[in-house]
Structure formats: structure tokens, C-alpha cells
């Protein structure tokens, strides 16, 4: 039997279908919890964040618009935001950004995910791996921990302008590398 698409499950959720919600949770729980754990680094807190993310997805399923992007991106953005809120008021980020970057770019087992998804992920990993640490560090701090350029500048003892410049150069390089294969 062909599994329902993500969009179909969201439509089901939008009208309050519990079965659709269960299938949706089952399909995405490892990715949602994985992202939450990556950001907050505490399993119990990560489960709270993951649960909150699914509740928000359930509540806002009717507002999802497929033209805006994939369901996975939408759901992981909700998760990322919830996780950032959970760590926002700590003085220190849960994990050194260089260590987190190393985890993000580490080689993965190709048999662990579908071939097309593995190829995409491997391409993103490769692009991030090529960034100098002075660029990947602020990009990771901003993306995964929600730090502003000013936050990062204070944390790393750098001028705000330097941080902004490094982030822009880093994202520009990533955009060029990732965009090069999209066409």
C-alpha cells in the first residue's frame, strides 16, 4: 500500500484526524527529537521540545501551504524555534559550536536513509565541511542556538561587524555550493 504523503497527513490533522496525527508523529519523531536534542542536549528537555513542536504543527496544520516549502522543512523550523526558546536564557550554549559542527558534518551510514535523501544530506555536509571554522562557527551559533551577531560578538570577543561579515561570507559560500547542484 502506498503511504500517505506528508501533505495528506497534514490535511487530516487540520480537520482533527487522530490517525493522521499518529502517522505523522511516527514518521517524523526521530527527526524532530533529533533536532531538539541537537540544540538542547538534554534528552528530557528535548522530548518536551519535540512534543511542543508536534502540538504546534497539529494546531497550525490548516495554515500550512505546500507552496512555501516541504513539510519536513516547516516542521523542523517549528522544532528549531521551540528548541531555541528552551535554551535562550542559558548563559552558555549547550555544546561548543565547533563540536556541534563536527557532529553535523560527520560521515553517516549510507544505508541508514533512502539513497536520494542521503545524497542531498551528503552534499550539504560537504558544503559545510568546506567552510573555515571562523565562518562555520557563527553560522552554526546563529542557526542552531538562535544567537544574534551581537550575541556572538560578545561571546567570542569580536567586533559585531566582523561577525556579520563572517556570517554573510559563510552563508554566501554555502549558497553557492548548494545552489550549484540544484540547477
Amino acid at each position, binding site marked *: 500500500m502506498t503511504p500517505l504523503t506528508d501533505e495528506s497527513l497534514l490535511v487530516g490533522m487540520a480537520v482533527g484526524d487522530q490517525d493522521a*496525527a499518529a502517522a505523522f508523529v*511516527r514518521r517524523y519523531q*526521530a527527526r524532530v527529537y533529533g533536532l531538539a536534542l541537537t540544540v538542547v542536549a538534554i534528552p528530557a528537555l528535548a522530548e518536551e521540545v*519535540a512534543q511542543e513542536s508536534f502540538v504546534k504543527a497539529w494546531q497550525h496544520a490548516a495554515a500550512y*501551504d505546500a507552496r512555501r516549502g516541504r513539510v519536513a522543512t516547516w516542521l*523542523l523550523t*517549528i522544532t528549531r524555534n521551540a528548541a531555541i526558546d528552551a535554551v535562550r536564557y542559558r548563559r552558555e550554549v549547550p555544546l561548543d559550536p565547533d563540536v556541534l559542527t563536527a557532529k553535523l558534518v560527520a560521515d553517516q551510514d549510507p544505508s541508514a536513509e533512502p539513497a536520494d535523501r542521503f545524497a542531498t544530506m551528503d552534499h550539504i555536509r560537504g558544503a559545510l565541511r568546506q567552510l573555515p571554522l571562523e565562518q562555520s562557527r557563527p553560522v552554526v551559533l546563529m542557526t542552531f542556538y538562535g544567537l544574534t551577531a551581537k550575541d556572538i560578538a560578545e561571546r567570542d570577543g569580536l567586533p559585531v561587524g566582523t561577525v556579520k561579515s563572517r556570517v554573510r561570507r559563510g552563508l554566501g559560500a*554555502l549558497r553557492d555550493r*548548494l545552489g550549484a547542484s540544484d540547477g
Partner: protein
Amino acid sequence: MAESQACQETRELLPELAAGVAEGGARAVALAHLGRCLDCRRELSEITAVLDDLVLLAPEHEPSPGFETSVLNALAPARPGRRPLRATAFAAAAAVLVAALTGGLVGRQTSDDRQLARQYRDTLAVADGRYFVAADISTAVEPSTGHAFAYQGSPSWVFISVESASSSGTYQVQLITTDHRAIDIGLCGVTDGKGSWGTTIQVPIRDISRIQLVRAGAPTMSARFG
């Protein structure tokens, strides 16, 4: 010249906007600029796509065995209502854009704010080269009594926000097209000088010359788009 300066200032902030962490007045100014500048919107869209890709790199982990049951129990009381999807989507899009441009997003953001800002970007992105425009509402003697917003998309819509009308009551809202046709599109109630209202429209935004609010005995309020 002013536009390139605005572009430069906005582009400085694009990574933080894309990450949903930009703060304060600079963010409000940048969001307003994005409403007018296709090039900056395109760049924001590209940076956002990069950040979305990076988030995908977070490794998967299975939660504890009771997680699914726990989530489903939490969902039951949060069950969404059976609202019409189109109406919901329209209301969300209008509220997002109007809130963004009228300063409702200033200050340190919560995740809901970031979601709102993201929806703002995404809503604009939906237009994909089309546009969102805003104009002051004024009368012959008052320079600004509110704002009108028009969005070219699918569907296209207009949203009126009256903030300081000199006369309260129910106003007829009319589109005046560039070929001088007047089209009644609905009624906007104004109480104590304030009111807001929106609707989807069939007229392409580029064909709107102005939107006017008309009421007998009251000064006509008008927003010029042409």
C-alpha cells in the same frame, strides 16, 4: 540612491532575519524594505533556504518508547477547529504582513514571533516575483489616518487598517482601477476612529489606482497605489 542604501542596510540583517533572530527597530525597518524590494526578498529567500538545509543535518534520534503516546495525549485537548482553510490562510497571511509592517514585531522575539516573521517571508515568497504593496490612507486634510495593504498572490487580497479616522461608522470600501472603474468590495466598520477589514479580490493589484473608504457625511479616506 536611497534605495541602494536601504538595500545595503537590509542585506546586513538578512542572515539574522532568515534565522529569525533579528531584533528591534532595525528588523522592522528591514521588513518594511523587504515589502518593496524584490532583489532583497530574493536574497533573503536564498539565505533562508541555506539555513533550512543546515537544519536538516541534525542527526536523527529515536525518543523514548512512550513518546508517541505522550504526544498523542497532548494533541487531544489541542484539537484544531474545523475552520475553512482558505479563510484561515487568508487571515493568517494578512495578519502576518500587517503586523510586520505596523511594528507589531518589534522587540525580542519569541518562537511565535519568529514563526510570524518566517510566515511573512514565506508569504511574500509565495508571490514569487509578484508583490506586496502598502500605502498611507489619508483624507484631503489629514495626511495619514491608516494604512492599506494589497497582496498579489493566489488569492490576491487587500487589507485596510484605519487608525485615526475623524468620523466613525460603516464605510463603503471601493477599488478605483487605473481605467477609472469604481468597484465596491465591502464594508469596513470604524469605531472610535479605528477599524480593520480585508477581503480577497479578483482585480490584479497593478490595476488598482487607489482604494477609498466612503461614508455619507464623512471625509473620504483614500490610499493611492498607482
